[in-house]
């Protein structure tokens, strides 16, 4: 066997965003230990500057339509990958800005915090480009390692330690499942690249293998029944880390899920629709119902996140280009609304040192801006028009209706009503209940930037979604050939009438 290894300039160009970020995170780490006196806030802004450069680079990729594959098709740059990279980098920028106040509370290792965030972002960027199962495994683990440490970052806080422990044990367990699944798929096909393993016949080894891979990715996105780490980890982790964890890795995992289901498994759609419909129904219902019983806002958002993932899975279950569009668009709306909501939780937590929903009583009196922003974010998460979340849900439902997934849509709609209840409980506490301590709350400039960004995104995507829709439609162009209306719907979701 012979290989030649050549890397042309064009090849290197494809790696440019990742290389930039790698260099930049080295710079951040070096500055942290080489200049111990440097205020650590500067590192945050330095990181943001670097990420802004990467973002500019990615936007250029997107506009210029630069694409290609590298390393024997392991690494792909196409518009889908670029979309997810922009998603991840954007999230990271906002998370870092939202972290500045919080990080001041740390006693040790303030600088490393930013380094680890950047490193996780780098891992997730690679995830977005993963085009075979080997790179799925490596990049998934790469991005998760940073999170293991970040979740347990509050060294003296028992909850943070415990959250780190649970995340770690379940995470490596999922990694074990993933690796074994990949080995089975390799055993059946002898290949690892997504487009090569699109085998024509489903053998049990392949089924078990893909199910194990799905279990690991389901763990990553927090879909029932692989969700159990989510509430505890979200609850115990430092809040900015929770915010990061609730958005970016899910986006990156969806990049992989979309490629896996739409490319490798396109031929088996009737078989996997059942799986996704089940996971979606369970996630929505379980997340929403249990969220009602929560008293901690982070746990509430954790369960609501499980339910939101259920909604996104509807788009995956649709299995069409429009379903893909809907997933991407929904993720965008979820980014702004969820990150915005967490930004409020971080801000309030910094000020009053509590994440209990009880302590949001009368927030409107203490800070009308925070209360209003939270209202917008929660209503967007609940899918109230004309906010972004409504368009996201509508898009998903319309994609599903074209595929005849009526049962799923009905369950989704009922779940919207249920979810309304617990979002409104928070709103009611903020607006109607009396505060125990009426002193006004003010927030710092970087925090304000994050909240404003969330508000702007939530409103803009709701009122004028067209540019974003054009963007996501372009990002999924490669799936235009996917099966149209309900080619062969499985028995569970019979179309009604016709």
């Amino acid at each position, binding site marked *: 066997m012979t290989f030649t290894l050549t890397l042309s300039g064009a090849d290197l160009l494809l790696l440019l965003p990742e290389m930039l970020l790698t260099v930049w995170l080295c710079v951040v780490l070096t500055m942290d230990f080489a200049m111990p006196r440097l205020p650590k806030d500067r590192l945050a802004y330095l990181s943001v500057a670097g990420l802004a450069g990467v973002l500019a680079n990615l936007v250029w990729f997107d506009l210029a339509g630069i694409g290609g594959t590298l390393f024997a098709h392991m690494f792909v740059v196409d518009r889908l990958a670029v979309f997810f990279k922009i998603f991840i980098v954007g999230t990271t920028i906002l998370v870092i800005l939202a972290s500045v106040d919080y990080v001041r509370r740390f006693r040790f290792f303030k600088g490393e915090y930013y380094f680890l965030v950047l490193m996780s972002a780098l891992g997730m960027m690679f995830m977005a480009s993963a085009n075979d199962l080997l790179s799925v495994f490596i990049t998934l683990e790469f991005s998760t390692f940073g999170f293991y440490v970040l979740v347990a970052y509050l060294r003296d806080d028992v909850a943070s330690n415990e959250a780190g422990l649970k995340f770690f044990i379940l995470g490596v367990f999922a*990694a*074990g499942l993933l690796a074994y699944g990949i080995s*089975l798929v390799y055993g059946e096909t002898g290949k690892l690249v997504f487009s090569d393993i699109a085998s024509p016949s489903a053998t049990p080894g392949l089924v078990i293998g893909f199910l194990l891979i799905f279990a690991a990715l389901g763990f990553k996105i927090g879909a029932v029944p692989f969700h159990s780490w989510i509430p505890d980890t979200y609850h115990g982790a430092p809040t900015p880390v929770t915010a990061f964890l609730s958005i970016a890795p899910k986006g990156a995992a969806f990049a992989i899920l979309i490629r896996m289901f739409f490319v490798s498994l396109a031929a088996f759609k009737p078989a996997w629709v059942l799986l996704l419909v089940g996971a979606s129904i369970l996630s929505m219902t379980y997340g929403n119902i249990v969220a009602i019983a929560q008293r901690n806002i982070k746990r509430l958002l954790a369960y609501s996140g499980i339910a939101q993932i259920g909604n996104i899975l509807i788009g995956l279950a649709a299995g069409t280009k429009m379903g893909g569009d809907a997933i991407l668009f929904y993720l965008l709306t979820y980014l702004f609304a969820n990150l915005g909501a967490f930004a409020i939780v971080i801000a309030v937590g910094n000020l009053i040192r509590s994440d209990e929903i009880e302590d949001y009583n009368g927030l409107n009196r203490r800070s009308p801006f925070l209360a209003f922003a939270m209202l917008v974010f929660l209503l967007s998460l609940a899918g109230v028009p004309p906010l972004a979340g409504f368009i996201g849900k509508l898009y998903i439902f319309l994609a599903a209706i074209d595929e005849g997934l009526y049962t799923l849509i009905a369950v989704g709609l009922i779940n919207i009503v249920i979810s309304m209840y617990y979002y409104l409980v928070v709103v009611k506490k903020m607006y109607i209940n009396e505060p125990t301590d009426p002193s006004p709350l003010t927030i710092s400039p970087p925090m304000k930037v994050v909240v404003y960004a969330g508000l702007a995104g939530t409103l803009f995507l709701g009122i004028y979604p067209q540019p974003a829709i054009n963007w996501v439609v372009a990002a999924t162009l490669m799936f235009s050939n996917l099966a149209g209306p309900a080619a062969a719907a499985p028995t569970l979701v019979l179309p009604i009438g016709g």
Partner: protein
Amino acid sequence: MVPLSYYVILSVIVFVTGVVGVLIRRNIIIILLSVELMLNATNINFVAYSYYFQNITGQVFVFFALTVAAAEVAVGLAIIIALYRSKSSINVDEFQLLKW
């Protein structure tokens, strides 16, 4: 020559041992070791298949799996030390502050 299926059965045994270990052992370090067993089952599979297909990809995967396993151990040990400091215990069922 040993048939491929022997390797596969061995790897299944090792994998299931790992899974069961994760599920029933209380000591976090042993849980970590069980996860390593799961990854090693993967490695057995990959090497066997790689030989069977005469295809190097599987062996490449093994290299990376080993690296990932090492990194897992390192991060895991760090977390375990932090836990031990706060609770003086590394029994997994003593950490159930966060629930419901």
